[in-house]
Structures are given as structure tokens and as C-alpha cells.
């Protein structure tokens, strides 16, 4: 158990250092490097989808298939919970 905790602390600190470096090396807060995709969406949303809310346009139109997947995840979770709490006898 002690070995485990020592090993845990060591690898945890290694991973922590890398994560903090990742955070420091990201582009500065609020100043993204590139914005091709999002600029295209911001410019064309109203024309192409007729929606005034850019996020809804992305959720249901540009990336609608993701939303289908997400609805499926929720469906799967509900089905899973029903399976877990079902009656065992008919």
C-alpha cells in the first residue's frame, strides 16, 4: 500500500507538471491563434440556417450529427438505468 501511494504521488506529480506546462503554453487567454472555422460560421450563420442564435445553428445544423449522437447518449443512459433497475422476475 505504501509503495502504491509513493508511486502514485510520483507519477501524479509528473503528470501535474505536464498539465501545468500545457496550461502555460496555450495561446494567451482570449487571443486565439486561428479562427477560420468559427469566422466562417459567424459570417454565414444567418444566411445559411436562418437562425439568429449562432450556437443553436451549430448545434442543430452545422454539427447536427453530433447532437444526434448526444441524444443517443442520453437515450442509452436512460435505457441503461432502466436495465439496471428492472424487475428480475416476469
Amino acid at each position, binding site marked *: 500500500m505504501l509503495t502504491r501511494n509513493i508511486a502514485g504521488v510520483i507519477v501524479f506529480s509528473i503528470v501535474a507538471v505536464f498539465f501545468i506546462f500545457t496550461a502555460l503554453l496555450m495561446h494567451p487567454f482570449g487571443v486565439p491563434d486561428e479562427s477560420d472555422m468559427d469566422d466562417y460560421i459567424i459570417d454565414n450563420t444567418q444566411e445559411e440556417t436562418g437562425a439568429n442564435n449562432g450556437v443553436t445553428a451549430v448545434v442543430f445544423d452545422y454539427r447536427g450529427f453530433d447532437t444526434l449522437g448526444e441524444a443517443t447518449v442520453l*437515450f442509452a443512459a436512460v435505457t441503461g438505468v432502466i*436495465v439496471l433497475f*428492472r424487475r428480475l422476475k416476469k
Partner: protein
Amino acid sequence: MNVPDYIIPLIVAIPLLGAFLTPLVSRINDKLRNIFVIIVLALNAVLVFLLASDILTTGIKTYVFGAKDLSYPIVRILFEVDAMSIFMAIISSILVLVAVVYSWSFMEKNTGLDKYYTLILLLTAGMLGMVLTGDMFNFFVFLEITSIASCALIAFWIHRGESVEAGFKYIVISAMGALFVLFAVALLYGQYNALNIALLSSVIQYTFLDKIALVLLIVALAMKAGIVPMHMWLPDSYGSAPSSISIILVSATLASLYGVFRVIFTLYGNVLSNIANFGIPVNVFIGWLIVALAMVSILIGVIMALIQTDFKRLIAYGAVAELGYMFLGIGAGITALGTAYGKTALDGGIFHIINDALDVGLLFLVAGAIYYATKETSLDKLGGLARNMKYTTVFFVIGLLAVAGMPPLNGFASKLLIYESTFQLNPILAIVAILSSILLLAVFVKVFYSAFMGPQLPKFKDVKEVPKSMLFSMGVIACIIVIFGLFPEVIINNIVEPAANALIGYSEYISQVVAGGI
């Protein structure tokens, strides 16, 4: 053969629609529901084969959701299907179809079967989506669908504490892995403002953040694929799930394996020949890391399988060892990228994916058949079943010989390719792989002896052969194994070789989407 473009989304959409309809259909009649599910999956398999025949003759196909054309900043989700994707899709659709036919009798006495079939359809959609998609975030979503559906199915026998425990372990592991995948996707998005695999691949730079993303993706997906030392959830979940689910889980882990290869070969394909630290190219670095993981997987998988007493846990450890062989072949292929034997290793690794899926799947089905007949999975208590279950015994022998790589079955053909090519990379690798293969044979001979041979035990006197639907599904897989063993060249030339070329040919993958290529 030319098929219309809209067949590509239908491959994912039809199981989804089927899943949403199943609860309503099962209100009417149970038998109707089973037939409905089988028809949906059979239709899907037909569509996959039609698409495969098209892809293998004409090359990569793309499908953009919601728009006809592909304007430059790729804002929409697109499916990009190449030979590797369709190879994995074929495996998934075959295994799921077989598992559903098998479940007809196997799960007959359980309650909640409408939910069971719904979850199987969702799982199918998730796996097919994972292998067909060309978008990183979409990949994550399908990964989550796959893990949630499989978690609920692993814990399906809720009256057994072990099943619930295995389900909890699986969901913790896969939720964490998926979140790290999402983090890596977000890292890539933050730098390049793109989510499309081809687009990302054309602009990737291999900076510090890219390296972090690469490591996170490889480790998280390798964990989902069950590589030692992150394999411990795999025997738990394979062993505790119903057998018909274990066979689908095999294909689900293989979909994660596909994710690893897609990330290395396509997403980072552009930078693989860069020079990293100490003047070593990146591909050698990654290749040797993967080969090291593969060797550990083979050894630990086989050694742990030797001491198992539970039938399905034993097969699961065997599956870990088999995963090691695939990783060995493909790791050697990455290390020796561009050489002739590297190509052979890649062929062997990819060919082994389909062989392993079939062999391990057949063994799980046999384990399920024994459980169905005797209500027993502990090898210590089984014995002498060959007298009562003749067909099952034959199928088990076929699966045993195939999984241990005995000629002339299919396992040998792919393992031979791996041995011969890794010998040229480093002889020790090939020798250890061959010795482990012999040990694997010993492991399964132990199962064969203790379950099927020996005197007929009195408590198993009245054991009967399993119902026809189970025999049929085992027989189908056994036939495929024998055919693959007898005609390896046909399979390699027609399916495996294009898949290997698709993995290597990342520039073609990119040029389908990004105008002008790289």
C-alpha cells in the same frame, strides 16, 4: 459496384432508428422484436458490404452532413470512409449480427430484453460511427455511446455482484479515457481551430501541445483497447458480461484500437518522419513504445491466462495476448515505415485484427453455450462435456486451433506474417512471440481437457446440446474461420492490403477533403 452516396450515413442511422423503434415494437410482441432487430442488423450488414465493394474498387468516399459541397473551412461533420474503416465496419457488423442471432435462445429467460436489444443496436451504431467518422469530436461522441451502451450491457445480469462491479469499473475507466480524448481534441482545436481529421492532419506541426495531445490520445485509446498494463478492466468485463455481449465487446475494443491507428497513421501521419530527440525519427520512437507495450501484453496475457480457472476470464486474458499480437504487427509496421517488411508487418497486424475478432468471438460463444447447458463457468467443476455436446466440441476445437495459431487455420496465416517481419526488425521479438503462441496453445488445451475431456461427470449426465440458433451462429463463425484459413491470399489481397495501404496513405486521405492536398 457503384452505390449512392447516402448509403454512408444510413449505415449509422439505420441502427439508431432501429434502436429508437425497438421499445415501441416490443410493446407488440417479443418474437416480432427479435425478428425486427435481426432484420435491421442484417440490412445494415448488407449496406456495409455494398459500401465495401464500392470503396475497395473506387477508393475513399466522403459524405458531408447537411450540405452538398465542401467549402474550405470545413465546418460540417463529414464521414470519410477508406479501406481501413470499412474493414473494421465489416468486422463489427458480422460479429453483432452473429451475437444477436445467438441471443435469441441464449437470453430467452431474462427480463428486460427490449432494453437489451435496444442497447445492442445503440452499441452497433456507436462502433460503426467510430470507425466511419472523419471528425475528432464526432469520434468522441461515438466513443461515449459505445462505452455507455456496453457498460449497461456488462451489468445486465444485475443479480450477480460481479457483473455490477465489472460494469462500474468499465464505466469509470471509459469515462475517464473518453474525457482525456476530449481534452486532447480540445488541445488540437485550440491550436488549429479545426476538428476534421484530414484538415488537422494537413496543418499539424508537432509542437509541445501536439505531443501532449498525441500521448493523451494514444494512451487513452490504448486503455480502451485493453493493452497491458491497462488491461485489468478487460477480463473483469468480458468475464462478467453475458457471452453474447462479450463477443460484441471484442469488436468494441477493436474499434478503440482502430482509433489508435487512425490517430498515429492519419492524424499524425504528416509528422511521423520528423526528426525528434536524439536524431531519431518520430515513427521509430512511437513504434518502439508500441512494440514494448505489445510484448508486455503478449507475455502477461498468456502467463495470466495459464492460471485462470474461470472459462471466460481465461479467454479474456487470451484476448489480451491476441491484442498484443496486433499491436506488435502494427508497431513493427510503424517502426519500419517504408520498408518491405514493415509493410508485411502491417499486413499481418491488420489481418490479425479480423482473425482475432472471429477466433476469440467463437471461443466466447462456446463458453456461453457451456454456461447455457450446464450453468457453470468454473473450469474446476466442468468435465466430460464432449460426450453430450458434440457440435460445440468441434467448434471449440476449431476456435482453439485458430486462436493458438495452428496451421492451417486463419490465426496461423496472420501470425506467420507477424513473426517473419518482426524477425527482421529484431529476432528476439519474433522468438518471444512464437514461444508465447505455444503457451497460448497450452492454455487452451487445458481448457479443452478440463471442460470437454475426461470421464462423464454424473451431474452433467442430462446435459443437452444447445438450441439451433446458438449452434447456427457458432457454425457461421467456424465456417468463416476455416475459409479464411484456407484462402488467406484472397483475404489479404482483397481486404487487408487495401486497409494497410489506406493506413499508410495519409496524403490521399487528406487530399479527399483539403483542396490541393499537402
